């Protein structure tokens, strides 16, 4: 009896789901994602599995980075902003904005949202962007708010694109029903199965074409691709390169993931720059593109993608020069560097597509020039142990294969963590690097760009900080009924309002 009831309910659900209104130009869509959102907490929206769903769809931010054009930081909930004479930033808020619970958006909400992020009563991850900063918030009036940051933050408006705004009634603890000012509200969340966002009336901006978005979650890329193909979903932001065979539906995009081997400079023989150079020369990067790494991937010269401020076009990719590598190794050996010591590559299972094959190929290439290389695959937590400080005592020479994501347009989200002496993933300590990072972080405008460029060149050519590999390409499959092109930000954010329905 009970069984038939359950099945009956399932049947009914499937029938209704099967009928999709054919209204042109607007309607519901289904999106299939790889990883389920375990939380829909606005202050966790900087984590991609959460951000992809709620960022700018449910929860909006004061500013927004233009990833389609080159307009840089654009207004969203803040209409404009300026830097005060004392170095603090003043944001002028948009009028007439309401939250999905009906309350009106004002400066108090912004202050609360920020304080909530910084509160020790929760584990908001957005807090990390404000590490080491003292922020004093001053509400000037209902629609004007001042942020005074010590030390001064030239890129505070950019940082504000990471702070999601919640109503001031929101408790400090994590919530499960996000309330935001965005064009959508959460209308159904069945953990393990689906999350549904519906367009809401009373949104301050333009009415989006997508009236409802149902998010589904499938871990297997082949299944995700198949679902769009069979019409069970309309959009899968990430499918496997192998499945991206239909030019009408499958699009590649630079997905802001940069893959590299982090070198631990503290341990011989990796403390020798010739050895580090030899590593770089030994790898035939170009051979990967179009085979294990999709066509369209860019060989990296910096840990930040080319769209980033201060990216340096003059820095050239190391050529594939096995003889040069052998020569360098021989030199190093002659100078007493223990180049025979086995070097271990630590990689993470399923870190990025084809990680095993790529690492096996790199291992083979390094071995070809005379390195002794072991390859070790570990799971996330163990990988993190190798990647971040404090490093283990008594470790051997290690290369950590990692993938870094900076789609935010400014190297500051990268450089300190990866290269500064105090950076958690820095494999070396160099006073000049520290100095450049410090100066660039504080600089604005062209000065800032110039300093970053300088740093990038110095890291690549002089320090030979790491083995930079590729700016990766992702593939998405978009149903032909949708009008959507993925961007570099699609990994972390998927704005439903940017999706058109044909």
């Amino acid at each position, binding site marked *: 009896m009970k069984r038939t009831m*359950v*099945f009956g309910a*399932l*049947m009914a*659900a*499937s*029938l209704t*789901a099967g009928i999709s209104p054919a209204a042109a130009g607007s309607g519901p869509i289904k999106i299939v994602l790889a990883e389920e959102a*375990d*939380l829909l*907490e606005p202050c966790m929206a*900087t*984590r991609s599995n959460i951000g992809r769903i709620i960022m700018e769809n449910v929860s909006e931010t004061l500013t927004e980075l233009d990833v389609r054009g080159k307009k840089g930081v654009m207004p969203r909930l803040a209409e404009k902003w300026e830097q005060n004479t004392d170095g603090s930033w003043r944001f002028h808020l948009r009028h007439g904005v309401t939250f999905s619970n009906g309350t009106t958006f004002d400066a108090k909400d912004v202050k609360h949202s920020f304080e909530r992020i910084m509160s*020790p*009563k*929760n*584990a908001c*991850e957005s*807090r*990390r962007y404000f*590490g*080491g900063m003292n922020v004093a918030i001053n509400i000037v009036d209902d629609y004007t708010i001042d942020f005074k940051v010590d030390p001064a933050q030239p890129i505070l408006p950019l940082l504000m694109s990471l702070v999601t705004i919640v109503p001031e009634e929101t408790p400090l*603890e*994590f919530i*499960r029903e996000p309330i935001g000012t965005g064009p959508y509200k959460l209308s159904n969340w069945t*953990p*393990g*199965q689906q999350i549904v966002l519906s367009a809401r009336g009373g949104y301050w901006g333009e009415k989006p074409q997508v009236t409802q978005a149902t998010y*589904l*979650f*499938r*871990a*297997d890329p*082949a*299944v995700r691709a*198949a*679902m769009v*193909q*069979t019409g*069970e979903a309309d959009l899968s932001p990430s499918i496997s390169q192998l499945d991206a065979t239909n030019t009408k539906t499958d699009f590649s995009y630079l997905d802001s993931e940069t893959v590299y081997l982090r070198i631990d400079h503290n341990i011989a023989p990796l403390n020798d720059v010739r050895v580090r150079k030899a590593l770089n020369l030994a790898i035939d990067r170009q051979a990967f593109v179009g085979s294990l790494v999709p066509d369209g991937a860019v060989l990296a010269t910096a840990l930040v993608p080319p769209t980033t401020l201060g990216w340096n076009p003059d820095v050239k990719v190391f050529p594939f020069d096995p003889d040069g590598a052998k020569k360098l190794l021989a030199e190093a050996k002659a100078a007493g560097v223990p180049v025979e010591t086995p070097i271990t590559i630590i990689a993470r299972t399923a870190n990025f597509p084809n990680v095993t094959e790529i690492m096996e190929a790199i291992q083979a290439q390094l071995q070809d020039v005379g390195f002794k290389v072991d390859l070790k695959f570990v*799971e*996330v*937590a*163990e990988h*993190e*142990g190798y*990647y*971040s400080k404090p490093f283990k005592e008594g470790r051997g020479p290690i290369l950590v294969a990692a993938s870094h994501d900076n789609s935010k347009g400014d190297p500051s*989200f990268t450089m300190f*963590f990866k290269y500064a002496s105090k950076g*958690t*993933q820095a494999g070396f300590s160099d006073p000049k690097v520290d100095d450049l990072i410090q100066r660039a972080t504080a600089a604005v405008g062209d000065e800032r760009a110039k300093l970053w460029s300088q740093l990038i060149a110095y890291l690549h050519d002089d320090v030979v900080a790491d083995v930079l590999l590729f700016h990766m390409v992702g593939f998405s499959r978009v149903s032909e009924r949708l009008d959507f092109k993925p961007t570099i930000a699609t990994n972390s954010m998927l704005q439903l309002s940017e999706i058109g329905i044909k």
Partner: protein
Amino acid sequence: MLSFIRKRSLSSLISLIGLLVLVFFLSRLTGDPAALFLPVEASAEMKQQFRELHGLNDPLLVQFGHYVGSVMTGDLGESLRKARPALDVVLEAFIWTLWLAAITMSLVAVAAIVVGSLAAFRSGGFFDRFSSMISLIGASVPDFWLAIVAIVVFSIQLAWLPTSGTGSVLHWILPIAVLFVRPFGIIVQVVRGSMIGALSSAYVKTARAKGVKAGPIIFVHALRNAMLPVITVMGDQAASLLNGAVIVETIFGFPGVGKLMIDSILQRDFNVVLAAILVTAIAIFIMNVLIDLAYALLDPRIRH
């Protein structure tokens, strides 16, 4: 009967407590959830705060004490990742697993009994050879491989069935079909072996001497006698289904407890792991009691 269940409960309780203690300490030794909850760039202070927030800074024994204390009051703690009660998370997922396991096992039972019995009836014959070959091959195919092939064939090429997910009856077909294969292969063999024994037993001779037809001899006389070992193996198979069909759940996007358990340990969401183990262990215990009841039902000699 009641005293039997009471005795069983007690011994199972001991096992369960042992299991929970083991999992509690082992899982906590595998690493720090803070490192996984927070991004790699998070500062040491943030990680510290996170640990503070969830009581992970206390010595293990103190943590254990807290856990035992709250379990006593029926509170299995909160999921670190999902910020909601671990038990809710688990129960939600377990319902799916339960249905999946129940339907799969029912189908397996019927199919394996029919095929195994017929194979035993003409043991050594063509059907016997054929069915044991098929079931053996079935039992040695990796399930993830089978799952993907099934999707490619039935969902993409033939477009008969949805690829994955939940929603309609059709969504259940592929996961069940993939889960079906291995237990079927194993149970067919057991049924066959047990039935060969039963069919050569003296009471079957009596039935033949009475003029009973082949059908009733197989399915009435021999089968009920042959069922005891079959039920034992079915119980084992059902238990492993109840523990979650991790791979099938992962590929088909089925929100069951197996994937939840693996995800939770990957993310070091200890409370969910513990709650999941508790729930499945209790379910398996109940199933075992039911199996014992089935024994007694099938074989009067076991009833006391």
